[in-house]
């Protein structure tokens, strides 16, 4: 399983403070989002994967390479931190170039790959301007450029979409998708749940240092039987549909929309509900649209972490 990032019962404590605890993961290639509130352990998990922090317990393998072997690990792995980390007085080009030199590339290769990486994040015109004069979005992009410059197979990015305007955000997400399509790992942390939903192949939800859920969003949602799935249906005869739907034993709640043109259904068995809905549609109920209301990261976050947050 050399194409995976594997964490085996990993714990990390900072003295008496918990970073992450008993994390066991096997992350496949693609875009993986780390989601969780502040202090939940997202950055610690990224630091562990990149070897910047050693686990107190457990073991980590990144594509079969131990993070304690930086010479091999950082040939395939790259990291862009959450904070603006720019040595003073550098231009964008110098920034990317100098850190590539630390990776051991020759001068010529560094110049070539730096120019390529900066072009890839569309900062070519600003490459020789000082970073101090960059906007927040440009800073994010130059950080991304230094991360992708040596063509890594594992890209670990802490809050990479913060501060980007919608256009650049879309371009950056397209770049992530392109990386993922090539079979690479793109691990991102984000607070913007809508974006996580849009871009992620899989999510890892963290809370208080523990992994509370991981996998594909839909799969995780299906396993949460204590929270009935919510489905929004827009139809012509909502009251009739409501009465028919409520006859199903797995349906626990039905709410009519105020305009009478739709209803919200809560069901414990989404598959059975959708099958039943097909029959109802055939019986002449004019169904306009059917959409899951809580089959997304936002709901997962609310169900799995929101409760804990509110009880704290």
């Amino acid at each position: 399983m050399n194409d995976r990032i594997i964490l085996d019962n990993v714990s990390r404590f900072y003295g008496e403070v918990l970073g992450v605890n008993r994390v066991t993961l096997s992350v496949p290639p693609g875009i993986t989002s780390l989601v969780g509130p502040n202090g939940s352990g997202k950055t610690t998990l990224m630091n562990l994967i990149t070897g910047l922090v050693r686990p107190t317990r457990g073991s980590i393998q990144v594509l079969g390479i131990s993070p304690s072997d930086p010479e091999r690990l950082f040939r395939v792995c790259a990291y862009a931190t959450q904070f603006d980390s720019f040595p003073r007085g550098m231009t964008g080009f110098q920034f990317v170039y100098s850190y590539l030199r630390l990776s051991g590339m020759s001068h010529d290769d560094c110049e070539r790959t730096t120019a390529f990486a900066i072009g890839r994040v569309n900062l070519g015109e600003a490459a020789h301007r000082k970073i101090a004069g960059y906007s927040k979005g440009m800073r994010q992009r130059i950080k991304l450029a230094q991360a992708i410059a040596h063509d890594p197979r594992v890209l670990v990015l802490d809050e990479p979409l913060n501060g980007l305007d919608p256009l650049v955000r879309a371009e950056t997400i397209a770049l992530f998708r392109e990386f993922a399509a090539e079979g690479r790992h793109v691990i991102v942390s984000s607070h913007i749940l809508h974006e996580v939903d849009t871009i992620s192949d899989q999510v890892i939800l963290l809370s208080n240092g523990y992994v509370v859920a991981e996998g594909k969003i839909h799969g995780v949602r299906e396993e949460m039987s204590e929270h009935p799935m919510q489905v929004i249906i827009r139809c012509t005869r909502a009251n009739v549909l409501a009465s028919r739907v409520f006859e199903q034993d797995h349906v626990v709640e039905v709410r009519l929309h105020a305009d009478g043109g739709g209803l919200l259904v809560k069901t414990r068995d989404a598959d059975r509900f959708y099958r039943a809905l097909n029959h109802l549609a055939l019986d002449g109920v004019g169904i306009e649209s059917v959409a899951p209301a809580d089959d997304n990261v936002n709901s997962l976050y609310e169900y799995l972490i929101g409760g804990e947050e509110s009880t704290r």
Partner: protein
Amino acid sequence: MAVYKRTYAAYEGSLTPAWSRFLILPRYSFARLWQSRFLVMFFMACFFYPLGCVGYIYLANNLSVLSSFGVPAGNFIKVEPSLFLYFCWVQAAFTYLLTAFVGPSLVSPDLVNGAMPLYFCRPFSRAEYIAGKMSVLVFLLSLVTWAPGLILFTIQASLAGWEWTKANLWIAGSLFIGLMVWILMLSLLALALSAWVKWKIAAGGLLLGVFFAGAGFGTALNSVMRTSYGSLLNLTEVMFTIWSKLFSWPSDTGISLEASWICVAVVCAVCLWLLVRRVRAFEVVK
């Protein structure tokens, strides 16, 4: 954003030797340092005394020049080991000020900017980071200490002849060892202070304070405890003890050579420990 249709291809070009990568760090430090006019002027001022020494050595080996100006050239002008000991003293004072100016800006900006993870998410270790930052000071201070010192020795050797050189070769070794020990201790002190004190002016002031406060506290300790080991807190006296021994010059500091070496080793070890505590790739959660 330009999207390139391409497949993954890892870098397969040649790699620079791992041992040499720490030398990447000084390049931008030097570029920034030389932008300061004050530093450039002060750096040039550091060579006034070595230039004076060159003149002195020339005259000592060409007494006829003095006689031609009617100056009696007796035994008072001659090249002895003490000339090199004084050279160490004077240049050490210059390097002390130079370090107070340069040192604080080496580590603290990286810590303030949170740049440490950027350095360490490479095949680059903390030891290499410290070596890279230290090399800025070591190179700069070497240029004004043992490098001109050895040039002075070479000039004297070329003027005085092979017999003098053979008999005094140990002076070259003493110059190099004595000044390198000073440079290493000073560099480590400056880096440690830079890592712990974020405000550059405060870090520079603290470096001066370490020496002055240590000297004052050591003198007070000597008076109160009726001992001479309080002088171990005075790093200038510690170094003078070592240099005196290296140049076969009588020392009146009252502390033994062994104690002085141990003191230097302890200071360096403490500085290294302080550096290792701060130079980390991650924030320590309090």
